C-alpha cells in the first residue's frame, strides 16, 4: 500500500493551499481529485477577484489556480487526477482511479474502456477539501435537459468552450447568478432575463450594473413556475411572487429560452466526511450540514482535517486561508513545523476574521465561531 504523510482530497484552492503548506514542512503530500483538471472551481472563474491585495484582488480565478499549481509543483506535491476517494477508514483512503488525466496515455485506447483501477493509500493525516455543490430548485420541468446549475453552464463555456445554450434564463441574482450571466454574454449567448425571488438583488451592485448595461433585465420578486418542452427546454414560465413567496395569479409570463440556469446557492459537499465518520452540524448560514471542526480545522475523527467550502460555503479567499491553516496544523501534529508557524497561524486567523467582517459576511463569522466552539468540545485535544 502506498504511504504518505498527508493525503488531501480535492485540488481546489483549499486543497492546494493545504498541500503547499504541508509539503513546505517536509510532509510527503498527495492530492487526489476526481476531476480531469486541477484547480477546483477556480478554473472557470475568469473574472477578477475583489478584496485586498493579499487576497489577490484584481487577479482572475484561473490565474490563481495556475499560481497555486506552480507552487505545488515547486514544493513537490503530487496531484493525482481522475482519482475518486470513495471511502476512508483507519486513515486509509480507498480510491477509484478512472484515468491518468494525462492525455498522452488516455488517448491511446483505441476504443478501450478508460483504465480504471483501485488504489489504497495510507495517510498519517488527511485533509478533506471536497468543496461545495450547487443547490437544485424543484419546479415542474426542472429535470428536462437544458435545466442546469449556473456553475455547470460556466464550466461548459469557460473551461470546455461549449456554449451551454443560446437563449438563457438565469434563476437567482446572487453573485453567482450575476457573474455567470455576464460570462454567458461574453461567450456569445443571449441572457433573456435574470430573475430573483427576493425583493432585492443579492449580489454586488457592480456585477448587476454590468449585465444591466448589456440590456439584460433583472426581475426581482420573480420565480420560475415551470419549464416546458418535450425532450428539452423550449420555454420557461415565470411569475411575480408576493411577500409570502407565492406566485401572483395572472402574472405568469412565457419566455422563449432553451436553457434555464439555477443559481440558488451552494451547500457543503460533506458526503465523504460523513462516510469517514466525521460528526456533522447543521448550519443554514454555512449552507447546510458541515463537519464539526476545531480551531485547528481538525474534525471529530482525529487526524482528519477539513478546509474550504466543505466546512462552510464561502469564497475562494477564505478557502485558501482555511487550507493554509489546515496544512500547517496537520503538519504540526506530525511534529513538522517551520519557525514562525505560531505567528503564521495567528495571521491567518486575523485575515479570516477580516474576510468575514461587514454586514454581508458577519453572519458567517458568527456561524463559523459557533461551529468551532462545538468543535473545541467535541474534537480530540492534543
Amino acid at each position, binding site marked *: 500500500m502506498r504511504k504518505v504523510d498527508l493525503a488531501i482530497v480535492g485540488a481546489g484552492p483549499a486543497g492546494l493551499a493545504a498541500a503547499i503548506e504541508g509539503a513546505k514542512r517536509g510532509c510527503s503530500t498527495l492530492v487526489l481529485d476526481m476531476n480531469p483538471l486541477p484547480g477546483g472551481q477556480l478554473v472557470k472563474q475568469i473574472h477578477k477577484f475583489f478584496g485586498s491585495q493579499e487576497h489577490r484582488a484584481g487577479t482572475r480565478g484561473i490565474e490563481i489556480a495556475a499560481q497555486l499549481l506552480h507552487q505545488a509543483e515547486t514544493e513537490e506535491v503530487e496531484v493525482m487526477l481522475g482519482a475518486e476517494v470513495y471511502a476512508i477508514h483507519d486513515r486509509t483512503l480507498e480510491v477509484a482511479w478512472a484515468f491518468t488525466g494525462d492525455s498522452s496515455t488516455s488517448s491511446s485506447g483505441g*476504443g478501450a474502456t*478508460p483504465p480504471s483501477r483501485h488504489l489504497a493509500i495510507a495517510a498519517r493525516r488527511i485533509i478533506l477539501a471536497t468543496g461545495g*455543490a450547487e443547490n437544485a430548485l424543484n419546479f415542474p420541468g426542472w429535470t428536462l435537459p437544458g435545466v*442546469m446549475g449556473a456553475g*455547470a453552464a460556466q464550466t461548459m*463555456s469557460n473551461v*470546455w468552450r461549449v456554449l451551454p445554450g443560446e437563449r438563457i434564463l438565469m434563476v437567482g441574482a446572487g453573485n453567482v447568478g450575476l457573474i455567470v450571466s455576464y460570462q454567458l454574454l461574453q461567450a456569445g449567448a443571449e441572457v433573456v432575463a435574470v430573475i430573483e425571488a427576493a425583493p432585492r438583488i443579492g449580489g454586488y451592485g457592480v456585477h448587476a450594473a454590468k449585465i444591466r448595461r448589456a440590456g439584460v433585465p433583472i426581475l426581482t420578486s420573480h420565480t420560475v413556475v415551470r419549464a416546458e418542452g418535450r425532450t428539452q427546454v423550449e420555454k420557461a414560465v415565470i411569475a411575480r411572487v408576493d411577500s409570502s413567496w407565492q406566485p401572483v395569479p395572472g402574472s405568469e409570463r412565457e419566455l422563449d429560452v432553451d436553457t434555464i440556469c439555477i443559481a440558488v446557492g451552494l451547500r457543503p459537499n460533506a458526503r465523504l466526511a460523513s462516510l469517514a465518520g466525521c460528526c456533522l452540524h447543521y448550519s443554514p448560514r454555512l449552507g447546510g450540514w458541515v463537519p464539526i471542526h476545531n480551531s485547528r480545522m481538525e474534525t471529530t475523527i482525529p487526524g482528519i482535517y477539513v478546509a474550504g467550502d466543505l466546512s462552510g460555503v464561502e469564497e475562494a479567499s477564505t478557502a485558501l486561508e482555511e487550507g493554509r491553516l489546515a496544512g500547517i496544523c496537520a503538519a504540526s501534529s506530525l511534529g513538522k513545523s517551520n519557525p514562525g508557524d505560531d505567528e503564521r497561524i495567528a495571521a491567518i486567523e486575523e485575515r479570516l476574521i477580516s474576510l468575514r467582517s461587514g454586514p454581508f459576511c458577519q453572519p458567517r463569522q458568527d456561524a463559523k465561531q459557533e461551529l468551532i466552539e462545538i468543535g473545541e468540545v467535541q474534537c480530540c485535544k492534543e
Partner: protein
Amino acid sequence: MRRVVSHPVLGTLTAAREVKIYVDGKEIRAREGEPIAAAVAAAGIRIHRYTAERGEPRGVFCGIGQCTDCVMVVNGVPNVRTCITPVMEGMIVETQHGAGSEDR
C-alpha cells in the same frame, strides 16, 4: 450548441488534436482532453439518458461529477459520468436507458 471560438477574456480557441468518438453510432469529432459531455454538447446532443421508470430524458445538470444526471453507456460500461470522463479515440458512447443493461 456551438463552440465558443472567440472570447474577450480567454481569447481565440486554440487548435486541439481531434479525437473521434461514436455517439449512438454517429461519428463526432471531439477535442482531445475534453470530457464526453462537452463533445456531445458541441454536437448538439442534450439527452444523455432516459430514466428507468418513466423514461424521462436527462442531461447535464452539475457538470462537475457530483449529480450523476449525465451518465451514459461508454464502451459498454453503463453509468459513466460523461462530465468528468475525457474522450478517447474510438470511444463508443450510447444513450443510456434506465440502468443501462438488462442484467443489472
